[in-house]
């Protein structure tokens, strides 16, 4: 808004027109589905009007768009630039400092005001803004001081070390100082995150490396889970014996389902794999004699530590008795954590090694161009089937881990939405990037979980507000939003596994056009 006078007036006019249009469209969208609520009555359905809700929704769209128009989209110096600069390297100018300083001041003022008025929700917002700015400044400072550090590598090593020592350290601290940490919850969440990391890495082989869009990945997860559950409950086999069997069974199914779809490409492949995933779920649901239908399979055994179970007492020696330590239910959970961590690392390791083998090279070549690949003499049938089988195997391993951790499985756990979540993790992480997938899994599952525990939001929207209801809605919005914002994923630069001569930087334009 540096241009004075008339140009601002024109800007305001066009911004107002645009926002008004958006408001009208929002009114058309929401008028019936939001403005009127169907209510069940004894006499049948009736309607309850909700004019306030409609007004608020339309108002948010109108004013939100007006503000964005004025200060971001049509402004000469968008208000968002200083915040974006926090995460870039170019220097601040005076305007940026003013904007950031004013924001920080506002946040502090808001925090104090909220503390005086005893409104924790607004305190939370103030703190979040300050933390955001603080993190950005810290990041800039660190990058400024050490400009040439290999950040990717530091991140990877740091992440691995954290994953390795996190449960033991926190457990030790808790035992030594009795801090009252919610360890059980932390470990459960970490196990969940790692399960999705493993699933993401497994699907990454199919989608990221081989370029085959699989919307039915959850079928292999289900095959693994049910293989282990059925073997364990019918034949009394243990987890460690069943794990390879489950992986093998899933891989077999990968080949069986992969065979018919060899000729399909792109979107068609996606839809057929989706159909296969649904078929598997419907069969699990209706084949009651074997799968127990919707009631699922319960009392699936937990894994043992070289034959030593985690229990206060058992028929034989238990883990705690053998090592002469006091029994603690957390021991079993920590063990589960390390099992899934090992499985996830195995997935990653195998993927990284396979990428250097001819088969991995063939996958990536096929992803880039199938016809060129065929004309170079690569057998695309074998290449596709191995990709399906390898991805499916890891899905199956993760599935049997899921079964043993839950102790109970039913077809409910293997719906399409699960496939969509795993695929979202892979795509949002940046297809083919192992680190990106891990980060996306942490962000997705962590963010998803955070919504479960937001007492702050409740004080914001009233006591009747149940954030769990809005989780999937927000998940969908995030999926669309991130994709539109960064179509190539969070970690956008996928380094090619093989390059001629020397490593070369890939130009962003090429990446955007999908050629790199």
């Amino acid at each position: 808004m540096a241009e004075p006078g008339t140009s601002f007036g024109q800007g305001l006019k066009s911004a107002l027109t645009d926002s008004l249009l958006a408001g009208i469209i929002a009114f058309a969208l929401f008028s019936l589905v939001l403005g009127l609520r169907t209510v069940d009555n004894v006499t049948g359905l009736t309607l309850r009007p909700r004019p306030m809700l409609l007004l608020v929704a339309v108002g948010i769209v109108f004013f939100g768009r007006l503000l964005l128009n004025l200060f971001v989209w049509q402004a000469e110096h968008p208000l968002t630039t200083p915040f974006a600069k926090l995460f870039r390297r170019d220097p601040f100018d005076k305007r940026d400092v003013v904007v950031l300083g004013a924001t920080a001041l506002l946040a502090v003022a808001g925090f104090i005001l909220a503390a005086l008025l005893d409104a924790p929700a607004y305190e939370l917002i103030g703190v979040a803004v300050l933390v955001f700015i603080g993190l950005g400044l810290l990041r800039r400072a660190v990058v400024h001081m050490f400009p040439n550090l290999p950040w990717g590598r530091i991140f990877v090593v740091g992440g691995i070390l954290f994953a390795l020592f996190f449960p033991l350290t926190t457990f030790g601290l808790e035992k030594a100082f009795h801090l009252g940490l919610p360890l059980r919850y932390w470990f459960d969440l970490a196990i969940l995150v790692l399960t999705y990391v493993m699933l993401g890495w497994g699907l990454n082989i199919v989608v990221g490396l081989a370029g085959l869009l699989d919307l039915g990945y959850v079928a292999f997860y289900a095959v693994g889970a049910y293989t282990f559950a059925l073997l364990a409950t019918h034949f009394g086999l243990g987890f460690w014996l069943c794990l390879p069997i489950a992986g093998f069974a899933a891989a077999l199914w990968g080949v069986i389902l992969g065979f018919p779809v060899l000729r399909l490409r792109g979107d068609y492949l996606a839809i057929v794999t989706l159909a296969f995933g649904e078929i598997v779920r419907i069969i699990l649901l209706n084949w009651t004699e074997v799968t127990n239908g919707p009631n699922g399979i319960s009392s699936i055994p937990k894994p043992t530590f070289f034959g030593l179970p985690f229990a206060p007492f058992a028929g034989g020696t238990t883990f705690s008795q053998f090592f002469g330590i006091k029994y603690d239910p957390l021991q079993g959970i920590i063990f589960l954590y390390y099992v899934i961590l090992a499985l996830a690392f195995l997935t990653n390791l195998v993927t990284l090694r396979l990428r250097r083998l001819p088969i991995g090279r063939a996958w990536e070549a096929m992803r880039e161009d199938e016809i060129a690949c065929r004309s170079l003499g690569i057998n695309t049938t074998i290449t596709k089937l191995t990709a399906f089988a390898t991805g499916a195997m890891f899905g199956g391993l993760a599935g049997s881990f899921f079964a043993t951790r839950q102790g109970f499985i039913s077809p409910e756990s293997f719906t399409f939405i699960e496939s969509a979540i795993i695929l979202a993790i892979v795509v949002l992480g940046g297809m083919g990037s192992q680190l990106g997938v891990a980060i996306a899994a942490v962000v997705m599952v962590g963010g998803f979980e955070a919504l479960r525990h937001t007492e702050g939001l409740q004080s914001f929207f009233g006591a009747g507000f149940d954030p769990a209801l809005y989780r999937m809605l927000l998940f969908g919005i995030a999926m669309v939003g991130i994709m539109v914002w960064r179509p190539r994923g969070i970690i956008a630069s996928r380094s090619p596994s093989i390059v001629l001569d020397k490593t070369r930087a890939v130009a962003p334009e090429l990446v955007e056009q999908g050629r790199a």
Partner: protein
Amino acid sequence: MPEPGEGEAGVFMAYFLQQLINGIALGSIYGLIAIGYTMVYGIIGMINFAHGDIFMVGAFIALIAFLAVLSIGITMIPLALLIVLVVAMLLTAVWGWTVERVAYRPLRESFRLAPLITAIGMSIVLQNFIQVSQGARVKPLQPVITGGFEFFKQGDFTVIISNIQILIVATTLVLMGVFWLIISRTALGRAQRACEQDRLMASLSGVDVDRTISLTFVIGAALAAVAGLLYLLYYGVIDFYIGFIVGIKAFTAAVFGGIGSLPGAMLGGLVIGLIETFWSAYFTIEYKDVAAFSMLAIVLIFFPTGLLGRPEVEKV
């Protein structure tokens, strides 16, 4: 459901005929939705995964509009249904337009999978938006259109064509006719066919590609709204999840008929409707979706171009 083939062949035939009628009615609904898939795929080459949920939103808008129209005192059913039809088509078209504008247009030049991912995201958004705003429970509606013709009587089995079935088939036929005229006679139809053949070339010859694509989504959504209204009247019960399964079946229909081909979509819809109805009637009803999904796989594998489609040329 009576067991077929118990007595004489006549009852068997009558039962078969009844299923044929039911299948055609169901297939007409699938056909209307399939047109949305086939048009969008033809013009921008993507599977509009959210189209099934647009159909669901259309059904909800129709339900609410119907209740609203009744509550303001219009009790003449044909008039009420006409108003509901227009309102549902208009508002659902706005939904279709918005989905395209928000989720697909920014990714038009992006890599191939990007719009498919946002489409899945949009499908999740629409489902959960309706779940949050209207509740997760099923919404029943008392039968609005009742009665029917006794078509044919054989022993103690009567073949009935209900009025709603007649309405479904008639509406579908009329809409197909109108739609066919739009595609083959109007400037919009020409622009659509031009974009389908070569988007760049079309834009060079003065076709507003963005506008054409938007209108394609608008028309598809309006037809899906009609399908939603008919579905609501036929089954009398909807919930926020109907879009997923119905959407996949309609997509199957579009592929079966040959994606990009409009008569193909209608034909495919009829075939899928018949397969599903006959499967439920003669085999197990639990596995009727498996039948439809297997059909999709078989069709794609053995006739990737469908019944009336053109072969897709692969280029390096």
